[in-house]
């Protein structure tokens, strides 16, 4: 039973254009959502997060949007650069004392020259 779903295994975007990565969730008890980027043979690195009480958070080229009614969030990367080619994981934290973080399966982003 997947609580955090990334339905697109891969995405290809032209360099300079906008990349939009999507994530859906099922549990209303998540209080924070996070995006991570992962290169092969390395650990994931934290990109950006958003609290469940907000609907947008921006950091440079990265913006995360949260639609609580739809239980949907998205990561926008503008403009896309070659170094953005990686696997992106959506994650969510459960609102309880254990601070369990649950990850989606990831979306592989290819930035095309």
């Amino acid at each position: 039973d997947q609580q955090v779903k990334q339905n697109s295994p891969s995405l290809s975007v032209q360099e300079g254009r906008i990349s939009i990565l999507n994530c859906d969730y099922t549990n209303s008890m998540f209080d924070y959502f996070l995006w991570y980027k992962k290169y092969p043979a390395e650990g994931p690195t934290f990109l950006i997060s958003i609290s469940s009480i907000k609907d947008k958070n921006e950091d440079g080229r990265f913006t995360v949007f949260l639609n609580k009614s739809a239980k949907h969030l998205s990561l926008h990367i503008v403009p896309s650069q070659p170094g953005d080619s990686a696997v992106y994981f959506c994650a969510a934290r459960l609102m309880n004392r254990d601070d369990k973080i649950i990850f989606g399966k990831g979306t592989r982003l290819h930035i095309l020259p």
Partner: protein
Amino acid sequence: DVKVTQSSRYLVKRTGEKVFLECVQDMDHENMFWYRQDPGLGLRLIYFSYDVKMKEKGDIPEGYSVSREKKERFSLILESASTNQTSMYLCASSSNIPGPEAFFGQGTRLTVV
């Protein structure tokens, strides 16, 4: 900068061996996690710990145990390694302040033959 260090980048073990994966973090984080990453399955939580000597099962704890005797160190133990435990293992740590983002180590690629 937060540093999470895993003791080995690559390990090859034989079926039935007892395997120890060590993880150390230097930021006094309360929470520590062990995940495994497999193609098409994303990051799956094995165990996590929110305090010294405390542990909680994640989604796939079978065949694994953990130890947290000191705050900075979280060990994953494969009691009797099997070939289906061949995977990339990722350790992470997090603090509740200022935010829930977890920081990952570089990963250990374990092959069980």
